[in-house]
């Protein structure tokens, strides 16, 4: 009896991890692309207004604080392994903020200051804003594909 129960709970657990088949790309790709370009917009497209507003606000506040703290924006750089990982990873993190990154680059809002703890925090804030947006993109993708409510 016990083994039957254990088996059933195991089967239930396995059942939980089975995702529905991926719908056609036309259904989720625009949402993912818009989510990347404009933080929170994917959620607005999916009518998750409050969730989108909170995520957009968090990304925006983090990004603006990073800029105001004169954070540094990474450029891809090769060299030793650690340098490559840090600079390429940082660049991807910065790029993940979408239009915020492009506007900052185009209009020259990013003015890194001399090294100090504030600038260092600012750099981390800018990358963290991108990582927040990555989480938002994944969330929007899961909603669009029916893997999440």
């Amino acid at each position: 009896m016990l083994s039957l129960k254990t088996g059933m709970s195991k089967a239930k657990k396995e059942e939980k991890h089975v995702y529905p088949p991926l719908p056609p790309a036309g259904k989720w790709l625009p949402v993912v692309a818009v989510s990347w370009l404009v933080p929170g917009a994917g959620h607005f497209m999916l009518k998750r207004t409050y969730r989108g507003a909170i995520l957009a606000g968090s990304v925006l506040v983090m990004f603006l604080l990073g800029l105001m703290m004169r954070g540094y924006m990474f450029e891809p750089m090769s060299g030793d392994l650690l340098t490559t990982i840090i600079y390429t990873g940082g660049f991807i993190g910065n790029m993940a903020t979408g239009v915020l990154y492009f506007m900052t680059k185009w209009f020259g809002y990013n003015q890194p200051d001399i090294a100090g703890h504030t600038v260092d925090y600012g750099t981390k804030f800018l990358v963290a804003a991108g990582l927040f947006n990555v989480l938002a993109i994944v969330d929007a993708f899961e909603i669009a594909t029916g893997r999440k409510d």
Partner: protein
Amino acid sequence: MPKMTLNHFEATLIFALLISIVLGVVTKRTDQERLQYGIKSFGYFLLTVFGLGWLMYFGHR
């Protein structure tokens, strides 16, 4: 762009707050769960900050 200078504590506090909000929103399913998770996560961040702060204080004595 105006310049802003935050000390370590302020920067960490804002960082922890925003991370807790985002994690709460994307990982949980109901509003109640999100709020609870956000508060819990922020509390853990604070505990870690104070714990590490004291650790470094005693480490440098």
